[in-house]
């Protein structure tokens, strides 16, 4: 396609979809169209600069405006951001180094609880002095701290288990995640660390350090309106940083060593790659990303409990990475976006639609079978409840028909 034409078409599409979403704030379909514009952006053969500009336009200006009109959009965008960041972290471990980590959510939980415990009155339970909750300014300190803690736990887990072969490793990481969850669930005694299954609330939100600036500019905005936007930009920055780091790592010595290990461990070792160290590094980097995302998640949710960190989440993130293509950064982004939208919008939308049909009680005429009253549609048939089934299907079908994922990494294609 002619690049100029493509640019024009793309801009037109973005404008139309945004206008639609702006004027029909209830329509999930309109928002889907906006989301699809980013996907188109990736595929359309427009000049690199134009694509960057349009992408920035959508992400930095149009989406926030839409979010201002309808907070739900922003919520979805934030969720997508969180899962994109997680998928990128897991992509390093599974995609680059080739270690199947089924307990990825454990690191996420560790990060989340790190901030949850100290950013809420919870820490008073075991540190005397009434110092907690910490002031919002500590949020960024903890963000950095969580990277260190995540890396450290990654190392601690990695040291003993990385000698194991692939499938054993999967089981041990799975076991590790269960141990972490069991600990979080039960550490409300002897000392109350995590408040057990009741979870922790309220968790301090990050500081609104820019509010004085806004007031200077003559904008009076209440924090309640500001926070979603703020989190949106925070997660955007975080995803951007993670992509940047991953990209740099991918093409560095370390990244090449990882891929060498993935392709053939023995060959890599004989070529002088320090296999164990490189594996540990990959483990630690992935863990630190997840942990940092966890801090943000805790701050956004205000309330967390062990329910948010089940095996289901690990598999969800894994499904994202696999759907997009293991070892591919754009793949992880698209996989995460796709699965999150599927989960949050499509399945829910479908459920609502079926519910509507049921209530309407319309008669459906099926050829040769007679008519069927839709009000008889069983109430259990609710797609939103069967996300596991969908994930499972994604995993099996992807493995059978396209094990390299939707967007396989470019280097593989060259071979």
């Amino acid at each position, binding site marked *: 396609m002619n690049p100029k034409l493509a640019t024009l078409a793309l801009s037109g599409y973005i404008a139309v979809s945004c206008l639609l979403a702006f004027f029909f704030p209830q329509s999930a379909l309109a928002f889907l169209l906006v989301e699809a514009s980013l996907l188109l952006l990736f595929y359309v053969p427009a000049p690199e600069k134009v694509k960057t500009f349009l992408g920035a336009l959508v992400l930095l200006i149009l989406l926030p405006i839409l979010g201002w009109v309808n907070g739900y959009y922003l919520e979805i965008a934030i969720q997508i951001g969180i899962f994109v960041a997680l998928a990128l972290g897991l992509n390093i471990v599974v995609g680059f180094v*080739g270690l*199947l980590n*089924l307990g990825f959510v454990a690191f996420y939980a560790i990060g989340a609880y790190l901030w949850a415990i100290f950013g809420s009155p919870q820490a008073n339970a075991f540190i005397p002095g009434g110092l907690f909750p910490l002031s919002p300014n500590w949020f960024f300190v903890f963000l950095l701290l969580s990277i260190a803690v995540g890396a450290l736990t990654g190392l601690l887990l990695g040291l*003993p*288990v990385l*000698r*194991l072969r*692939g*499938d*054993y490793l*999967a*089981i*041990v990481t*799975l*076991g*590790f995640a*269960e*141990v972490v969850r*069991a*600990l979080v*669930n*039960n550490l409300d*005694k*002897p000392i109350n660390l995590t408040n057990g299954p009741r979870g922790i609330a309220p968790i301090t939100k990050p500081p609104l350090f820019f509010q004085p600036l806004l007031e200077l500019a003559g904008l009076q905005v209440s924090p309640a309106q500001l926070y979603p936007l703020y989190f949106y930009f925070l997660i955007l920055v975080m995803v951007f940083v993670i992509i940047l780091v991953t990209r740099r790592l991918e093409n560095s010595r370390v990244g090449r060593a990882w891929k060498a290990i993935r392709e053939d461990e023995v060959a890599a070792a004989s070529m002088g790659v320090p296999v164990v160290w490189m594996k540990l590094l990959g483990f630690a980097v992935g863990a630190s990303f997840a942990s940092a995302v966890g801090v943000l998640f805790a701050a956004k949710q205000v309330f967390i409990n062990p329910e948010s960190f089940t*095996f289901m989440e690990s*598999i969800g993130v*894994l499904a994202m990475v*696999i759907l997009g293509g293991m070892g591919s950064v754009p793949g992880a982004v698209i996989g995460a976006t796709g699965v999150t939208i599927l989960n949050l919008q499509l399945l829910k939308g479908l459920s609502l639609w079926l519910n509507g049909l049921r209530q309407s009680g319309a008669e459906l005429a099926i050829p040769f079978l007679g008519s069927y009253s839709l009000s008889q549609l*069983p109430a*259990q*048939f609710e797609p939103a*409840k*069967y*996300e*596991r*089934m969908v*994930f*499972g*299907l*994604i*995993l*099996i079908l992807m*493995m*059978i028909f396209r*094990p390299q994922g939707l967007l396989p990494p470019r280097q593989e294609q060259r071979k």
Partner: protein
Amino acid sequence: MYALIALGYTMVYGVLEFINFAHSEIFVLGAFVGVEVLLLLESSGQLATLHPAAILLLVIITAMVISGVAAMALERVAYRPLLGGPRLVALISAIGASFFLQDGLRLFESLWRNTFYLNYPSLDFLDRNLPVTDILVIPVKSLLVIVTALLTLAGLHFFVNHTKLGTAIRAVAQDPDTASLMGVPVKRVIALTFFVGGALGGLAGVLFGIHYSLVNPYTGFVPGMKAFTAAVVGGIGNIPGAMLGGMMLGLLEAFAASYLSLVTDGAFGAEYKDVVAFLVLILILIFRPKGLLGETVREGKA
């Protein structure tokens, strides 16, 4: 109990060197088939009239056959196309299958019974206790589990070591290529292995259901994990090893549940038994990656 599920894992792993993640769902399927058969018998009023042993046998055999067939179907759909590919690919597919089955079962049961938490009808003869001495009383349920497990072990041992099919299974386990050269239908043997493994899972499921009397589609995860632990502890791919590992893990958990709070002065209680089980798994994998009885398999004696 764990030993029984572990046997299923070991069977499949021994032949394919592949962890059948969906085994825990096959196990749950067995439990559900069991409960359905019992409920059907109950609604047709035959539960009271039939002989207890006949009921038990009927339930167990139905569950075993259905689970076995399900496992075979699973192998056909989700694993066979991936044979010879990278191991991770098959593993991920297995996880997918496991998730798919969980919700598939839930969907089916919610459509069929309007709920997916099912209660086993209570069977009188199983709720009795068997007094051995004045203090020692064994519930019939537990006895049933233990006896079945031992019988199964013996049966499996005989099947694998002393029948033609068993020999074929062992041949495929050692070297599929050579086995196929010797005229062993490798694919059919693999399917058969899945059937046997699945049937064992179904049997374990029924016993689990009878023992705990409440099943839902998600019950399989933790027992499945533990059974895998047991299989690994005993040396995966090794039938007596799985049995030993299962018993060890069961004992360990029972002790952890009752003594942990005593030892730590009430700080850590029975809720940590799962943690203990997984820690044992990690420790054993670190110090003895081949498991307690693992070496014998490698040396080809078993």
